């Protein structure tokens, strides 16, 4: 996870574990439910956005495989990882995976690379840990 950067492409393939899940936001009816989760692997953590049925299917402790996911800004200008329309998220198992909670890539200020505007680079750290899901 450490190597992902925000982009408008479905290019993220990763295996991680969900540490915590927030209550879904009550928005626009059941099909458009979204909820945020804290995801992490041995290298980094990130906020993962679950859509619709995904909100119920996944729980803290689940080990997840993401294929063709996308790491980009949502409506609130937060950088989140999600499956997106072309991506797929599957549950592989539970519990048996190591993780770190810092750095959190959603709590980093990104900006386009000066020499390569298509790619984003980290500018500064807003918070070392997730502010929505602080460590226990």
């Amino acid at each position, binding site marked *: 996870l450490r190597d992902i950067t925000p982009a408008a492409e479905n290019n993220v393939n990763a295996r991680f574990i969900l*540490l*915590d899940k927030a209550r879904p936001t009550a928005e626009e009816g059941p099909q458009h439910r979204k909820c945020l989760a804290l995801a992490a692997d041995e290298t980094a953590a990130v906020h993962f956005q679950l859509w619709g*049925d*995904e909100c119920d*299917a*996944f729980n*803290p*402790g689940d080990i997840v*495989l993401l294929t063709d996911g996308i790491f980009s800004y949502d409506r609130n200008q937060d950088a989140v990882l999600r499956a997106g329309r072309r991506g797929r*998220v*599957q*549950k*592989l198992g*539970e*519990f*048996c995976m*190591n993780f770190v909670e810092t750095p959190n890539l959603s709590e980093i200020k990104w900006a386009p690379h000066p020499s390569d505007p298509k790619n984003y680079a980290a500018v500064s750290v807003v918070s070392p840990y997730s502010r929505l899901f602080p*460590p*226990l």
Partner: protein
Amino acid sequence: MESKLVNRSPYDADSPLETSLRAAFSSLKSKLRPPFPLTILDTEEEYSKLNRAILYGTLCEPELTEVHIKHLHGIVSDAYKYFTKMLVKVVNEFYCKTFGNVKKQILRMTREMVSVSAIGFDVLLVALLRQIVGGDFSKENSWLCVEVLDILWSFWDCLVEEEPVILSGALYVFMRLLADQSRVLNDPSNESLMKMEISFCLRMLRERFSICLRIGRDIVRLLQDLLSIPEFQELWRDLVCNPSTFRVDGFVDISQIYSRRTSGWYFSLRLTPEMESHLRFLLSHVKFGSQKRYQVWFAKKFLLSEKSKVAIDIVRFICCGHHPSNEVIGSDVIPRWAVIGWLLHHHDDEIRTKLKLALFYDWLFFDEGAEDSVMDIEPAVLLMVHSVPKYVDMTRSLVEFVVMLSDRYDTRRKEVVFGGISRAFQAVVKRGVVRSLDVVLTCDMISPVLREILAKFLQIELKTAPADFRFPTTNQTRHCFTRYIEFHRCVAAKGEDSGECAKFANYYRALCPGEWIEKWNEQRESGTFPGPL
């Protein structure tokens, strides 16, 4: 893809096991109906594939069970070893998630494998026993109990002959389940199951006591939890007063059971494979300090039900069934005592007493010369020592408990229990599990009476140091420091086992606060001790 075997959500990844079974089935489907081709299967690969196909067929086509079974009998060439092995994998991997009719077929095929004495049928029975969840009184769980009991009962003689260990394992499981169930009062659906379990247990204990003895000392612990059931009350009386009723040569007293260590295998029978893998991961890979999230997930998944006392089995398992390697012990992975400390904190008083008994059970009759291992008793003493000073309540409660046990566990054999606990304490010091129990012996928050008894276990005398004219003032700091140095200089000159140095040890222990001693011990080890040793 929709699964016929397993009740899955669309978000679950495909299981490689299920995929391989289904693939074998689809490709060989035409060959699974009579008339069966008489081709000899040349390669192991073909044989395995056909077995997988038949297995999938038996699980998903119940109406064709007889056909598939006949086919299997016809083609078998390895005494059903591969078929049973695959069936065990299915049970271990997804028994709890399979559909009801698939469960029925699994039990049907288990019965078939037992009846032909298939290679590995014992492993299969164990796998099913482990799927019985403690404290779960749902229909499905009860049904599984009934089915397994029925198989054991039907094949009793064959099991006694060929795999008596399985019967002893089943006895452990059902006694444990009965203990949980007997507390749930007045549930009629429960009653008939309990009757079956009681019949099984009594038959084992009365007719095949020598097989039951294989369990070891924990059978006593289990029996003591069943005394509310009249049949067990009677059995207990016989065990204590009339051991000859059990007709085992050489068995004359209950204390003979005490000396037999219970193998960790029995404790694993009460953990589902998932629980075991989670626990082993926690104890082998999670850093000390990073365990909180794992503990939350584990508790939510396995420790939520009030009726389940599975924590008791977990504690026994951690002590006797999971001995980490030296590499893991020396690393920063969370130690066993910390996990047990968490379990103790997590539960309330009623279960906590049982958890403490589970933690100290091997202490009561410890004998390194016999079968006992210091690794079984290590977590308890480390929890005691490491809880000072931050969680001194824990230390106090553990010391109180072990002292109480030495007095009350077996009032007619107090010396036996005292001897066991004493040997256990001395072994942990001798083997270097802890350098010494000083930090507990000098802890002011624990009553002097308890500390006195603790010293007795360790065969140390805890009188205070005599007044010394060199240190006439009230502040005895210098006195304490001097005695500490005197002890270590004595040991350096005369050797550790010399009795002469013991008096200096008693003096410094009586005078010095535990934290100072710990600090000085560390300084000595690292070579920074500020004194003339």
